[in-house]
C-alpha cells in the first residue's frame, strides 16, 4: 500500500514540474520577463536586482529553479493590465470561483445521485424516461448556451434573477469575501450555479444509473433477494455502496473540470472569479496572470486527483490487500 501511495505522489510531482516548465517558458520567452515582473514603473536598480534573483544570465535549469522558488513564495510578478501583483489579484478573486464551484458541485452531486438512483429503481416509469431524455439534452448543449438560455428566460423575460455579477458580498476574516450572507448575493449565485452544475449533474446521474443497474444484476444481489431481504435494504444498503465506489472516483476527477468550466460560466455571467480573470488575461496577453493561473489550477487538479485516488483506496477494501499477494483470491 505504501508503494502505491509513493508512486501516486511521485506522479503528481512530475506533473507539477512539467506544468511549471510550461509556465516558466511562457514567462521567460513570451514577452519580456523584466516587464512581466516589474511592470512599467521601475528603476534601473530594480532591474539589476531582478536579474540577480531570476538569474537571467544563468543556464536554463537554474532559471527554472529560481522561477519555481519565486512561485513557491507567491511571487508571480505584476499583471500587465492592472500593474498590481498577480498573487494579490488571484487571491482577491479566488473566493468567488470557489463559492461558485462548491455550490454547483454540491448541486451536481446531490441531484445527480438522487436522480440516478431514482431512474435506476424505477426504470420503466414515465418520469424516468422523461428525465433520461432531458439528460441527453443537458449533455449535448454547450455550457455557455445553457447559461444564455437561462439568462434569457429568468432575467430578460421573467426578471426574477440577476444576469451578471455577484451581488453584494460581505468580507470574512480579512481575506475571504462571501456572497452567502446577502439576499442579492444568493440570488446572483443561482443561475451561474445551475449553469455550471447542469453538465456535471447529468453526467453523474447517467453514471449512477448505469452502475446501479449493473449492480442490481449481480449474483450477490440475487443471493440477497434469495435470503428474503427487503427491497429497501437491497437498494440502499447493498446496491448503493457498491454503486458509489466507481462513482466517487469519476466524480472526484470531474471536480477538477468544474474549476475549468467555471471559466465559461464566469464569462457568461461576468462573475468576478479567477476564470474570468484568465480569459481577460488571454485577450490582453497578460502573461504573468496566465502563468500564475496555470500553476494554481494544476496544483488544484493534481491535488484533487491524488486525494480521490487515495480515497478510493480507503473505501474499497479489496484494494488494501498487498498487491503482490492474494491477487484476485
Amino acid at each position, binding site marked *: 500500500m505504501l508503494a502505491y501511495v509513493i508512486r501516486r505522489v511521485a506522479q503528481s510531482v512530475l506533473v507539477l514540474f512539467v506544468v511549471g516548465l510550461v509556465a516558466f517558458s511562457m514567462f521567460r520567452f513570451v514577452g519580456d520577463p523584466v516587464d512581466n515582473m516589474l511592470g512599467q514603473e521601475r528603476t534601473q536598480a530594480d532591474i539589476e536586482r531582478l536579474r540577480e534573483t531570476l538569474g537571467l544570465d544563468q543556464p536554463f535549469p537554474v532559471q527554472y529553479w529560481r522561477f519555481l522558488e519565486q512561485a513557491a513564495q507567491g511571487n508571480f510578478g505584476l499583471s500587465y493590465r492592472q500593474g498590481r501583483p498577480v498573487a494579490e489579484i488571484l487571491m482577491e478573486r479566488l473566493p468567488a470561483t470557489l463559492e461558485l464551484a462548491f455550490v454547483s458541485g454540491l448541486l451536481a452531486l446531490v441531484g445527480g445521485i438522487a436522480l440516478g438512483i431514482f431512474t435506476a429503481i424505477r426504470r420503466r416509469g414515465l418520469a424516468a424516461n422523461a428525465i433520461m431524455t432531458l439528460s441527453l439534452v443537458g449533455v*449535448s448543449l454547450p455550457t455557455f*448556451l445553457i447559461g444564455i438560455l437561462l439568462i434569457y428566460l429568468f432575467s430578460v423575460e421573467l426578471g426574477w434573477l440577476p444576469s451578471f455579477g455577484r451581488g453584494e458580498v460581505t468580507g470574512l476574516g480579512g481575506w475571504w469575501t462571501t456572497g452567502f450572507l446577502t439576499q442579492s448575493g444568493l440570488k446572483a449565485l443561482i443561475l451561474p450555479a445551475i449553469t455550471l452544475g447542469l453538465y456535471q449533474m447529468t453526467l453523474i446521474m447517467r453514471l449512477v444509473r448505469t452502475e446501479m443497474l449493473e449492480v442490481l444484476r449481480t449474483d450477490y444481489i440475487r443471493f440477497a433477494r434469495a435470503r428474503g431481504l427487503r427491497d429497501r435494504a437491497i437498494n440502499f444498503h447493498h446496491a448503493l455502496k457498491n454503486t458509489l465506489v466507481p462513482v466517487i472516483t469519476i466524480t472526484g476527477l470531474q471536480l477538477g473540470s468544474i474549476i475549468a468550466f467555471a471559466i465559461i460560466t464566469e464569462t457568461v455571467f461576468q462573475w468576478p472569479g479567477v476564470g474570468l480573470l484568465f480569459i481577460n488575461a488571454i485577450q490582453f496577453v497578460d502573461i504573468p496572470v496566465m502563468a500564475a493561473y496555470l500553476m494554481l489550477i494544476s496544483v488544484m487538479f493534481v491535488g484533487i486527483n491524488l486525494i480521490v485516488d487515495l480515497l478510493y483506496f480507503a473505501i474499497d477494501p479489496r484494494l488494501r490487500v498487498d498487491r503482490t499477494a492474494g491477487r484476485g483470491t
Partner: protein
Amino acid sequence: MTEAGSATPPAPRPPGRLRRAWHSDFLWSFRRAPVAMVSFLVVAVLVLAALLAPLVAPHDPFDPATLNLMNGFTPPGEPNAFTGESFWLGTDDQGRDVFSTILYGMRISLFVGFSAVLLAMVLGVLLGLLAGYLGGWTETIIMRVADVQLTFPAILVAMLIFGIAKGITPPEYRDQMAIWVLILAIGLSDWVQFARVVRGATLVEKNKEYVQAARLVGRSPFAIMTRHILPNVLNPVLVIATISLALAIIAEATLSFLGVGAPPTKPSLGTLIRIGQEFMFSGEWWILFFPALTLLALALSINLLGDWLRDALNPRLR
C-alpha cells in the same frame, strides 16, 4: 461430375455494393431509429447550407461595400425604417443580414471543426505509431506527455495554446491568424486519444507474422509503419474521429464565445452569440436568438447522431 458439354446455369451475380450496404446491419439499425434519422437530416441540411453559403446567402455580410450602417437593428421580416430593405432574420448593429452571417458563420465553425480533428488525427496517429512501434524512450516520453496533458480538460489546454500563440504573434496579424491558431489549439488539445488507441493497436500488430516477415526482408521501419501497420489500426480511429468532430465544433463555439476564438471580423456561430449577448436586454433579441437557435440545433443533432453511432458500432451491445 458433369459430363463435357452439359451446361450448368450461371451462378447469380452477387448483389452490388450499394445494395449490400443498404441491407447491412449498420444501416438497418439506422433506419429503425427515428431519432438518428432526424438528427442526420438536420445535420445534413445545416452542413449543406453552410457549404453553399456563397450561393444561398442573400448578402455577403463581410463585404464592406455592400453594408449600409443605416440598415442596422432591423427586426426580422419588417422593412427598415430608413432604407426600406427587409431581411428574413433581421440585421445586427452593423447592418449585416443575420441570416447570411449565420450561414457564413457555420462555414467557419465546420471548417475549424474538420481541420482541427484532421490535425489531431494525423498527429495522434503518427505519435501513436512511433510510440507503439519503436518503444523504449520514444514511447515513454510520448506517453508521459500524453498523461500530463490528460490531467487537464481539453478546453483549458486549447485556451492556453491560443493564449501563447496569440502572445507570440505580432498584434497586426492576430485577427488574420486567429482561425489558424484556433485550429491549432483545438487540434493539439485532442491528439491524445488517437495516440493512445493507435499505440495500443500497434503493440498488438507489432508481434504479428506479417510484420516480422517485413522486417526480415529488410524494410525500413518507416515503410513498415506506414504501409503495413497503419491500414490495420485505422478502424477504431475513424470511430473516434467522428465523435471528436462533434466535440470540436462545440469547442470552437465555446472558444469563440469566450472571445478566444474566431474574431468579429470573421465570426463563427459562437462569436455571433457573443455579439448578440450585448443586445439581449435592449430589445434587439434576434441578434442573439437566431444564431443561438442554429447552434442548438447543430449541437443537439450532432450529439444525438454521435450517441446513436457509438451504440451502433459498439460490438458489445449487439
